[in-house]
C-alpha cells in the first residue's frame, strides 16, 4: 500500500506543483498574491476541452488552446488587477482578483452549464502493474509533464536573458528599471508564464479526473498556495518541493490515519514547519526570490 499511496500522492502533488510555481513566480516578483489563479487553471481546462471536442480529438491543438487562453487571461489579470496598484496597498489586487475569480466562475457556469463535463477519451487504458501497485499511463504522463515543465521553467529563469531580467526585477524593481530593464514587460512575462502553466495544469487535471466544472480550480489552488508557502514562497524549487510533499503527506494521512483528517494533518504539519522555519522548506534570503 505504501508505494501505491506515494504514487497517488506524487500525482496529486504534481498537479499542485504546476499551480504552486505560478504563485511563487508572481509573489516572488511582486510580493503580492493573486486569488484568481485557480480560475485561470479552470478556463485553461475549459478552452482545452472544447477545442479538443470541436476538432474531433486533436490533443496538441487542445493543449495549445489551453496555453493561449490562459496566458492571455494571465496578462489581462496583470493589467487590470496589478499594474494600477503596483506601489499601493497589496490589498487592492487581492480583492480585485477575488472578484475576478467569482465572475469567471459564474461566467463559465452561465456559458457552459453547471454539470460536470467528462474528458471524451479514456486516458487510463495503459496500466503498469508491479505486484500490488498499479500505475496508470496517465499518472506517468502527469508526473512526467509536470517535471518536464519545471525543468524548462528552471532553464528559462536561469539561462535566458529574460530569466536574468526576471531575477533582477524580483530583487528590486526600481533598480532593474534604472538599469534599462522594461519591468512592465518582465512582470507581464511572469504572469504569462505562471498562467500558461496553470492552463496546462487545468487541462491535465481535467483529463486525469475526467471532470471539468466551473469550480474545479477552487480547492486545488488553495492547496497549491499552501504547498508554495510550505516550500518557501518566492522560490521555484521550494514551491515544487512543497507541493509534491503536500500531495504525498495528504495521501499518506488518508491512507494510514483517516481521510476525514487528511487536511487537518496536512495543514498541521504545514503550520509546524512554518513555525520552525518561517521562510518555508527551501525558502532563502529575500534577495534570491525567483
Amino acid at each position, binding site marked *: *500500500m505504501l508505494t*501505491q*499511496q506515494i504514487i*497517488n*500522492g506524487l*500525482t*496529486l502533488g504534481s498537479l499542485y506543483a504546476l499551480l504552486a510555481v505560478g504563485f511563487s513566480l508572481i509573489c516572488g516578483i511582486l510580493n503580492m498574491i493573486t486569488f484568481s489563479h485557480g480560475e485561470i487553471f479552470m478556463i485553461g481546462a475549459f478552452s482545452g476541452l472544447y477545442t479538443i471536442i470541436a476538432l474531433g480529438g486533436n490533443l496538441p491543438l487542445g493543449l495549445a488552446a489551453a496555453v493561449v487562453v490562459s496566458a492571455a487571461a494571465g496578462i489581462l489579470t496583470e493589467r487590470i488587477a496589478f499594474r*494600477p496598484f503596483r506601489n*499601493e496597498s497589496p490589498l487592492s489586487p487581492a480583492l480585485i482578483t477575488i472578484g475576478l475569480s467569482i465572475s469567471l466562475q*459564474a461566467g463559465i*457556469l452561465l456559458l457552459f*452549464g*453547471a*454539470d*460536470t463535463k*467528462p474528458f471524451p477519451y*479514456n486516458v*487510463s487504458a495503459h*496500466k503498469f*502493474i508491479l505486484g500490488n501497485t*498499479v500505475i*496508470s499511463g496517465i499518472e506517468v504522463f502527469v508526473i512526467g509533464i509536470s517535471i518536464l515543465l519545471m525543468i524548462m521553467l528552471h532553464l528559462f529563469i536561469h539561462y535566458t536573458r529574460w530569466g536574468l531580467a526576471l531575477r533582477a526585477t524580483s530583487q528590486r524593481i526600481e533598480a532593474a528599471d534604472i538599469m534599462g530593464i522594461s519591468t512592465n514587460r518582465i512582470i507581464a512575462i511572469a504572469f504569462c508564464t505562471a498562467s500558461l502553466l496553470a492552463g496546462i495544469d487545468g487541462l491535465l*487535471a481535467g483529463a486525469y*479526473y*475526467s*471532470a471539468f*466544472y*466551473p*469550480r*474545479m480550480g*477552487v*480547492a486545488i489552488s488553495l492547496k497549491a498556495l499552501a504547498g508554495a508557502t510550505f516550500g518557501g514562497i518566492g522560490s521555484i524549487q521550494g514551491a515544487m518541493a512543497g507541493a509534491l510533499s503536500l500531495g504525498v503527506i*495528504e*495521501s*499518506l*494521512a*488518508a*491512507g*494510514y490515519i*483517516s*481521510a*476525514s483528517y*487528511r*487536511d487537518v494533518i496536512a495543514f498541521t504539519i504545514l503550520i509546524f514547519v512554518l513555525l520552525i522555519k518561517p521562510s518555508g522548506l527551501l525558502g532563502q534570503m529575500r534577495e534570491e526570490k525567483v
Partner: protein
Amino acid sequence: MNTFVKKIAGLLSVGVLSIGLLAGCGSGSDKASKDDNIIYLGAAGPFTGDNAEYGTEWKKGFDIALEEINAKGVAGGKKLQIIYEDTQSDPKQSATVAQKFVKNDKIYAVFCDFTTNSTWSAAPIYQKAGLVQLAPNPSHPQLTKPGNYIFQLCPTQADQAKALSTLAVDELKAKKIAVIYLNTDFGKAVKDNVVTAAKAKGVEIAGEESYLPTDKDFKAQLTKIKTGNPEVIVLGSYYTDGALIVKQARDLGINAQFIASSSVHSPALFQLGGSAVNGLITMSVFNVSNPGETLKNFSAKYSSKYKANEPDTFATQAYDAIRLIANAINKTYEKNKKVTRQGIRDELASTKDFPAASQDSITYSANRQLENAKLYPIIAKDGKFLPYKK
C-alpha cells in the same frame, strides 16, 4: 489612477441603483391585475455553487410540471409561477432566503432545499411562519423532525439502507463490505444505516472511508479499502463523485461489486464514468421496469424537451414536488373556496395514493414522510439502467 477607479465605481453604483429603481417602477404598474391570477411558489435550491448541476435538474422537472398544470389551471383557473432564489445549498443562504420567502405573502409554498443541512437551517423559519417546506431530495431519516410544515419526498436512508444491505448480503452473498461516503449529513446517514443493517446480518465491515464535497481524488481512500479486500463496496455519493470513485477504483485494480444509494441514478453517471460504471447496482426511487402512466408521460416529455435518454432522480422528484403542491392547492380550494398556506399544509399532509412519477403512488405518513416507500434495484449496463434481477 486611484481617483479614476473611484469615479468608475461611483458611476457604476449610481447606474445599478437607477436600473433597480426603474425596474421597480416598471413591475409595480401592472402588478395588481396580474397577481390575482397567479399563485406563487418559492424554490430555494442550489442554482450556482458546488451543487448547481442538481439545481439545473430541478428546473427541468419544474418546467415540465408547470406546463402541464398551467394548461389546466389551479384553484379555478389560476396559474402557478415559481420564484427562484439561489441558496447554493449553503445553510446560511438557505436561512436568508427563507426569511425573504416567509415575508412575501404572495408565496404559498416553498421547495427547499437540496441538502439535509440547508433544509434544516431554514426549517424553523418556515415552521414559525406556517409555510409549507417541501424538500425534494434530502433522504435523512430524521429530516421532518423540525416541525409539521416540513415534508420529505425521497425515500429515507433508513429505507435505502435496508434495501442496500439486503441486496449486498442476501442477493450478492457478500461476507465483507466496505463503505465510501460523502462526509455530510446525507453521506453519514447512508454509512451509519448500512453499517448497522449489515452488522445485524453478521457481515464484516472491511472499511469505512469518507471524502469531502470538493474532492476529486479518491485514490488514497480506495488504496486503503483495497487492502481490506471487500466483495461489495457501498457508495454514499452523488453521481458525479460516484462515477469518479468507480473509475479510479477500476484504475487501481479493485474488482469489487459497487452498489450505491439512489443519488447516483442519473444518465450523467455514464458520461462521467464511461464503461467503468458497468455493473454498478443502485436503487431507483422510480419503477423503471414497470413504469406507471405518470412516469411514462414525464419520461417522454423530458426526453423530447431536453434531448436526453431519461430523466434522473432530481428532475423526477422536482416534477412530483410541484404536482403534489398543485394537488393540495386544488383540494383546499374545493373545500374552502380560497387558498391559504395552512390549507395547503393540511391537504398535503393528507395526500393519499397520489399517482406520481418518482414513486408509483405517494401517501404521506403522520411524520410527513413517504409511507411504504419503494425502491427498485437497477444495474448500470452500457449506458443504460436496467432492472436488476439475480
